[in-house]
């Protein structure tokens, strides 16, 4: 795969990031270099190897279906809200 300007712009948009023209150009060459370097892995025959999703050879732990007894730390969580009203987070209006 080749990283084009369109790819960078698309990913930036999906990530809600904006870049200056100069940065964009820098990314195109840097990301292509990284991909080229990783391409080397394709020399290996992996047709018999299942795709790796995790690096741990164990299974996920589970918890019992129990509710925490302590109340929710509402104030501490809402501390992070750019804007709040009572117990609500407030965001710019998302529908018209």
């Amino acid at each position, binding site marked *: 795969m080749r990283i084009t300007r369109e790819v960078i712009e698309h990913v930036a948009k*999906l990530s809600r990031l904006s870049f200056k023209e100069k940065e964009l150009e820098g990314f195109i060459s840097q990301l292509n270099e990284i991909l080229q370097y990783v391409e080397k892995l394709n020399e290996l025959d992996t047709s018999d190897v299942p795709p790796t999703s995790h690096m741990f050879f164990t299974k996920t732990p589970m918890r019992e279906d129990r509710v925490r007894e302590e109340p*929710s730390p509402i104030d501490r969580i809402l501390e992070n809200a750019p804007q709040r009203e009572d117990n*609500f987070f407030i965001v710019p209006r998302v*529908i018209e």
Partner: protein
Amino acid sequence: MEYEAVIGLEFHAQLSTQSKIFCECSTKFGAEPNTQVCPVCTGLPGVLPVLNRKVVESTIMTGLALTCEIAKYCKFARKNYFYPDLPKNYQISQYEDPLAKNGVIEIPIDGTTKRIGITRVHMEEDAGKLIHPESGHVSYVDFNRTGVPLMEIVTEPDIRSPEEAYSTALTLKSILEYLEVSDCNMEEGSLRCDANISIRPKGATTLGVKTEVKNMNSFKAVQKALEYEVARQEKVLAEGGIIVQETRLWDADRGVTRSMRSKEEAHDYRYFPEPDLIPLIVDDTWINEIRARLPELPHQRKRRLQEDYGIPEYDAGVLTASKYTADFFEQAARLYSDAKSVSNWVMGELQRYLNQEGIEIQRCKVTPEKLAELLKLIDDGVISGKIAKDVFGEIFRTGEHPAAIVKAKGLVQIADEDALVPVVNRVIEENPGPVADFLSGNERTFGFLMGQAMKATKGKANPKALNKILRERLKKH
């Protein structure tokens, strides 16, 4: 040209757990905003999700009931998108390896059954709730629902009409209720259904372009939205147009589907394996243990009710469509010997009141005990069947005991000859015309005279006794 519809449904059922899927927050509905949140479900840095075992069990159980293959190895994936109801900016879901896949649901349609394929059943977390005030520039966010466990159930595009879609939805709801994995409360949004629909010339094997229909808040709405969408797509094709692949929202008030015309570009969720959760391994011992706990399913219970209570197949089908209706019937039928009579009352009066008031049977004031008690009052000749219907309405409204209502309202049936003779005499006196008519051989006038006499006792007369006395008196006249 004659077209046929090709429909696939996607359900989201909220699982009935105490706590959320990855943290110990409560899932209780209706709590004050943001009182059931923690660093895990609000996506604060440095936290790790830990999977709720019951979510896995409920999903395996559903998979087994739908005859799915259960994956011995499956993993979670991140579905990435920005929206204020999603504090982590990704939803933990399953993508490549769902917990259950390749199942079947058998639905009743046109007096027979049809098999609809189940593509997959997977686990995921719900998003939060957004509240938009009528005016202003802000929206409010409540994260109580964030992380509440959902089960997504996707059917194959095997459904060929809106009626089949409706039947599929009802059947699935019924199965989930029987399994007690979800309370399927549509009002609280614990069961939701979206649809994919395309049309093609009848007999064609290729698929047409599909639209996705959302925002349907009842199964009847699903059927109506799909009926509308079939007609709309047929019209577009008839006029030489093309169907655009898009998401359309059902507008219940206007009875139309409308294009979302979303400004954002096509969804690009960039799914990737959730690094915070190691793969889930399910062994045969666990699957077998859950299989052993599978409860009786609707079609099994239908057969049993026919055998155990001797009720007709039709009745058994209606009663078992909802677990709670079947529970109600069985409890009442254990207390009262005439099961067919119980069935008639449950399918008739009770259902009528429930529909009228929009109440669910498990929240209704008429209990199986009270219905059985009422039916015994009819058998004992205390009240007539007609009065019993009034008493039933009163139980439905107040939850009072039938005997107490009968006593308080003076509804006890009059079978006493001394009390009925004067009434009959008066009716004969006041209706010389009809009496003469009857005596000249017109038997039908008897019904009219019975009606008058019954009215005079406000419906309280024992019909048998009244009939006997009226005939005797007329003969002597």
